[in-house]
């Protein structure tokens, strides 16, 4: 219940109206500010989200590229290793076959002649005083003082292989 004197209601009406109007205006301004602020925050958040998405996309792409390159390199390394291992296996097989064939020479009818030639050869290199004996591996061994000549069949085969090492890649180059 109002304790104001009678007649004051009418005179306060304009004050109330002014206060209400100011409050309305203030509320409208605050609402507008809030709306603008929310729009701005939303826009900033959207931009930031887009930036994060782009960064993540770029990083993901880079990581994928690195991973793909790494995987590709690992696979190629493995493939290369397999090829090299096969080549080495072929070379080992060749060596084995050559050594085997060299051993077979012992049953060749020309073997005695070969021993004679090897002995002459050893004598010519180490001198006539050289001691030449037949090797248990086939071929001959010769010794003169501290000098030694290994004309055994495995040694000769090994030397022949070393001298023709440049031809070994033909084993796989022809494929």
């Amino acid at each position, binding site marked *: 219940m109002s304790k104001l004197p009678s007649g004051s209601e009418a005179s306060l009406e304009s004050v109330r109206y002014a206060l209400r109007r100011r409050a309305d205006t203030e509320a409208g301004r605050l609402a507008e500010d809030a709306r603008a602020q929310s729009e701005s925050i939303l826009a900033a958040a959207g931009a930031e989200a887009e930036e994060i998405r782009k960064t993540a996309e770029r990083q993901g792409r880079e990581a994928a590229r690195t991973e793909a390159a790494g995987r590709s390199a690992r696979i190629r390394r493995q493939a290369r290793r397999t*090829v090299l291992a096969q080549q080495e296996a*072929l070379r080992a097989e060749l060596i084995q076959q050559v050594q085997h064939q060299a051993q077979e020479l012992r049953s060749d009818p020309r073997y005695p002649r070969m021993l004679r030639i090897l002995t002459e050869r050893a004598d010519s*290199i180490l001198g006539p005083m050289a001691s030449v004996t037949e090797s248990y591996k086939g071929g001959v061994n010769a010794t003169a003082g501290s000098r030694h000549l290994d004309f055994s069949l495995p040694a000769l085969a090994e*030397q022949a292989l070393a*001298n023709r*090492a*440049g031809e070994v*890649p033909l084993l796989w180059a022809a494929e």
Partner: protein
Amino acid sequence: MAAHDGTQNPVLPGVPVPDPAGSRSEPALSVPRVGYSDVRELRGPLLVLGDADGVGWDEFATVAVAGQPERHGLVLEVDGDETTLQVFEGTEGLSLGGIEVRFSGRPLAVPSGPGWLGRVCNGRGEPLDGGPPVTGGAPTPVGGWPLNPVYREPPQDPVLTGISAIDALTTLVRGQKLPIFSVPGLPHLTLATQIAAQATTSSGRAFRVVFAAMGMTHADIAYIRDRLEERSAAGELVLLLNAADDPVIERILTPRIALTVAESLAYDHGSDVLVVMSDMTSYAEAVREVSAARREIPARRGYPGYLYSDLATLYERCGRVQGREGSVTIVPVLTMPAGDITHPVPDLTGYITEGQVVLDPDIDARGIYPPVDELSSLSRLMRSGAGKGRTREDHLDVAAQILSAMARARSAAELAELVGTAALSETDNAYIEFRDVVEHDLLNQGRDELRTFEQTMTRAWQALSLLPRRELNMLSAEFLDKYLPGPVGGARL
């Protein structure tokens, strides 16, 4: 070098003619290999042998020991019937009896040709990748010959590394020798490996890389292998890996084998070849160790007096040759003990090479990679590899302007430490800001980041745009208008 059996090129002395048919030697019996067993002394890596005649200096030999793997050696000295060999694997575990030495009749030789590409070998050229021994072209003595100066052509055209610090400011040129001076603890191996992984030329010729690692830890070797895997798998790389625990004398052979392979790929097969040799200080220490074992008179810091000529026999094997397509470019890496640039190895290297890329611990501490001190670095042949028709018309002027501005920025930064940045002029502050941007945006880059030359130049111009235009007095108005970013021809007015 002692006599060799490589066929000499009548037009180009010093460059052997390749044997297209490969190695087709005489029948085995024509090259008897007499075994000598009169071993008179074992001293460190040296073996003194008596009763050996017809042996030549520098001849390669195999040392057979009963029940042990074969060892290898080179003849160091011949005195009457007494021969001194250095045994690569050392003489540990040997006794005077039971040793048989056989000489090969020629210096140590390796096969030439592209059979090396894609292979991983030890410091003596023996395979580590499970494959067969490298074979192919004619055996070529690893000692090689320095290029005949009459037939030498000046280095030309750039080798682009994809690393801004090098491409922009110390451009590597095809046929040049440009060392990296570093100190232990800095990422010089990372840089060397990045160069080996990324470098290329725009010549259209095949680009090949020979990486000679000397005295490396196994962790470093694993890093090098992983980092260079792609290039290796592509058949563009030869890896020679000498580990820290490998025989020290083998380290002396590693760069020689690398260069022999590179010469063959370059001059016989027309490729541009980059040889990265790391770490040459380990190499020089191996030379010192062998010299001490030979009881030679030591010179500075125990290194032999011939270290200069020894290094020159390696570095001078780079270059371009008249009438040949390819080139050999060398990037040796040196670590300066305690950062001492007057140490014999960097000092003597500096006399021979054509500039240097210096890595700085202070820059590394600021987190910049690669930590190149641009003001101490120099590529003396940059003019032959940069500019119009080679890289870009504005390249040389931009590089000069950046170096000049970096020098001014260093002075301004020193002044700022005394009086504070607030007391500096606006121009001086612009220089300090310029230096930060150069270090962080131009020089700094990822360890596996490949920057195109255009990207590098864009970053260089971005940095220059921070300076007042009046300060850019090494750049023509035409270049400024064309390349400087920003409004009104760019730069602060």
